[in-house]
């Protein structure tokens, strides 16, 4: 958003300078607000929500930043040009680029699928450290009498009668650290 504002502001300023040399226009736009307020907030949220563990994570993060910037530049151009013949193609391109950026940031997270414990024995909800990892699975989906689950040992279709009782677990980041 900041890049979009910055781009449109820069282009507008350049256009003014081309039309009326000597008058810069001095329109700073909202980018100072983005820089001073929204960027630190986004940085704080990203610091707490985005987990970078290895080189591939760094690559995805760099892709996110790069594609976001390209999307911002495209949106800035679209905003400035208004409704001309490049409005919809420009918008489509900007949307496609930002969608790729969203996929890049999503790659740093684990799938939003529930963690389940099969053949749960204890009456109380165990903490993450107390879980027996061979009985903990990620639940993909269910069909009549079947459960599709996976963990480090494989992807399984269990009969529901073989895994009773099945207990949903709270998310355990220590178990689901993204590779």
């Amino acid at each position, binding site marked *: *958003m900041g890049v*979009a*504002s910055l781009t449109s502001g820069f282009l507008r300023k350049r256009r003014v300078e081309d039309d009326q040399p000597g008058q810069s226009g001095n329109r700073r736009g909202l980018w100072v607000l983005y820089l001073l307020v929204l960027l630190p*907030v*986004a940085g704080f*949220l*990203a610091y707490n*929500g985005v987990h970078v563990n290895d080189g*591939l994570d760094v690559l995805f993060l760099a892709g*996110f930043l790069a*594609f*976001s910037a390209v*999307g*911002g530049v495209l*949106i800035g151009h*679209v*905003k400035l040009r208004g409704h001309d013949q490049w409005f919809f193609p420009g*918008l489509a391109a*900007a*949307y496609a*680029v*930002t*969608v790729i*950026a*969203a*996929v890049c*940031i*999503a*790659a740093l*997270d*684990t*799938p*939003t*699928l529930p963690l389940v414990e099969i053949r749960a024995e204890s009456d109380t909800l165990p903490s993450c450290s107390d879980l027996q990892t061979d009985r903990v699975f*990620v639940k*993909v*989906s269910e069909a009549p009498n079947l459960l*599709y689950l*996976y*963990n*480090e*040992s*494989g*992807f399984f279709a269990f009969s529901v009668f073989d895994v009773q009782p099945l207990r949903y677990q709270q998310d355990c980041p220590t*178990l*689901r*650290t*993204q*590779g």
Partner: protein
Amino acid sequence: MKVKDLVEVGLLYVGVPAVTLYPLGFVGTFVQMWRDEFFPYYDFNIVWNAVAMVPNTVVVGRAYSSCTSPWSPPYWAWASLR
């Protein structure tokens, strides 16, 4: 504002994101599952089949959260158009 303009605006701000939610969620879930240490396969077909089994609501929810998170590029791109 004419009806045609309303339809155009509706398509732009609601239709396009709605249509792209499932594909975005599918690709996002695919990449996440492919990278999940808990999921021991890297074979394209196995990951594809596993993602295809995920309920549609979960896939769309994944895309929705991707599009509405504070640092979501599609959300900000759309928002900055206004």
